[in-house]
């Protein structure tokens, strides 16, 4: 089976004035369908750069990146935008919702860019909001929602296009522990429904939710281990 993501000797070099910063020094890894992977590493390790490349927000300086078997390393801006739109669902630490739009419109947005007709769009968006238990907050704007609710809107937005991967960057970073756990529970559910999840975090207890932990340090993969032990969702009353 073709892996969803295949990275072969990916490097990324930034030119900052005269200095060259080698953020990634040859990263190779495969991620299969329905995996639940955590990418870990301290700040400055290159994990954000790796996430940007996996998320097609950025392109590698060298190396091969196959997404569902398709080479995306040298795609242009528009082709990358299409991949991001259809194949990747982003969940950010700071939620990144459009402040002036209600939950429904935020979730509809990727479908608008995908050219889905209005009636179908609304139907998909509503069912995605239902999936994250926000059916009763459809017309609330982000500032009328709690942090956890905002992140659930973001998850709904990530799910609505039925993407190949969900890419979550510190999704609990701005949430208290209890709400963070709820969101992690939501990811567990989504994973059980057959989705592929890539989680970027620097917190061990968050990474523990994943089935595979990839540790990055100084621009290379330090370790890549599968977690076999059954993971328990902390029970919160």
């Amino acid at each position, binding site marked *: 089976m073709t892996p969803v993501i295949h990275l072969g000797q990916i490097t990324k070099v930034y030119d900052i004035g005269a200095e060259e910063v080698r953020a990634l020094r040859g990263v190779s890894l495969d991620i299969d369908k329905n995996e639940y992977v955590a990418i870990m590493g301290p700040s400055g390790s290159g994990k954000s750069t790796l996430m*940007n490349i996996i*998320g097609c*927000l*950025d392109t590698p300086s060298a190396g091969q990146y196959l997404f569902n078997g398709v080479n995306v390393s040298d795609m242009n*801006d*528009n082709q990358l*935008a*299409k991949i*991001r*739109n*259809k194949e990747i669902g*982003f969940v*950010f630490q700071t939620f*990144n*919702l*459009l402040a*002036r*739009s209600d939950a429904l419109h935020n979730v509809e*947005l*990727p479908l*608008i*860019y*995908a*050219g889905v007709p209005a009636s179908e769009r609304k139907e998909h968006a509503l069912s995605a909001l239902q999936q994250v238990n926000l059916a009763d907050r459809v017309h609330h704007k982000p500032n009328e929602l709690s942090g956890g609710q905002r992140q659930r809107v973001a998850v709904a*937005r990530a799910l609505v296009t039925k993407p190949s991967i969900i890419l979550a960057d510190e999704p609990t970073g701005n949430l208290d522990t209890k709400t963070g756990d709820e969101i992690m529970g939501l990811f567990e559910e989504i994973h059980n429904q057959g989705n592929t999840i890539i989680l970027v975090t620097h917190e061990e207890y968050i990474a523990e939710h994943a089935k595979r932990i990839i540790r990055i340090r100084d621009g290379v993969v330090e370790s890549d281990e599968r977690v076999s032990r059954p993971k328990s969702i902390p029970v919160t009353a």
Partner: protein
Amino acid sequence: MNFFLEVKEGLVIAFRTIRANKMRSVLTTLGIVIGIVSVTLMATGIEGVDRSFQKSVSAFGTKVLYIQKFPWMAGDEWWSYRNRRDLRVEHAELLERQATLLEAVAPVVGTVRQAKYGSRVLENAYVNGTTNGYNTASGMTIRDGRFFSQEESNGGRPICVIGANVVETLFLNEDPLGKVVKIGGFPYHVVGVYEKQGGLFGTFIDNQVKIPIKSFASHYGSHHDVTINAKVAAGADIEDAKEEIRGIMRKARGLLPGQKDDFNINQQEVLLQAFNQVTGVIGGVGLFITGLSLFVGGIGIMNIMFVSVTERTKEIGIRKAIGARRRTILAQFLIESAIICLIGGFIGLIIAYPLSLIVDQFLPTAMPVSIIIVAILVSLVVGVVSGFLPAYRASRLDPVEALRYE
């Protein structure tokens, strides 16, 4: 993503942003509003000047030639025409007999005399002596009554046709027809009244009194230089008719081949041409200056769009992350600035329209439909042009950088 969805989403975002930044939107739009108001009013004014001139010139009649000692647009060469021999009534008679391409010919002589009815006086009436042919060989319209007949003309009857201003000055609530007015001391029966002309030549034309040329000669003398009005026959070419007149006139005046004409054949088109040149320049300069205000408005839009793009860097990053393409972002900001300008254009027109009605009080005009369409198009173009650079910058933003922006 198809074009329609793109535009629709762009419109939604545009209106939401404009509503969210009310004060800023109002101030930005103001520049365009002022620009559109000044440009449309300028165009309306030019239209008014044009119309009143066209109307005034129409009094000279279409296909009416004026054979005169002086050309209408003599310029500095006036002195060289001054020594020409006068034209005489006999020339008109000759033309009437010999010309085949003319429908009517009328000699016209003029003087200024006092017109009086009872105790009411008009000091400077322009008194013209002419023949019955004048009614055809001019652009003047009779409102009440009639022009004099051939018999009355040949018989030198003491009758007159008077201009609207003469009527207004001499007659209060009376019907002037059949009344006797004294012109330069001589009594004349009013048989006809001209329609009011107004416009640029109004003071001249509306103060006219037309009488048979024979009456004119016996009362005010016959030494005057004559203008010959000639109406070109229907179906005849004006240039052919001019050539025919030239031939007859040159022979009558005994000009040898090689000698220059010592008369001119004038027509209203000459005036129109000269006028169009003048209004063309005035209009061009006027529109350019008022256009500058629109340009300044456009710069205001560009400025505020740059601010808007910077402010919304994060939003652009989010949109790009979830699949907005460059041209989608470009379209979004272009639509926004176009909408601001279009709103400005509409408000400008709404303000300019009542103002144009005020202009209409002084200078009969109307806002041309074309200028309404042009104003809308211009505001659209200003919006797109001044929005382009900011929108382009937005579309080129790097999604990683944009997402990091706070």
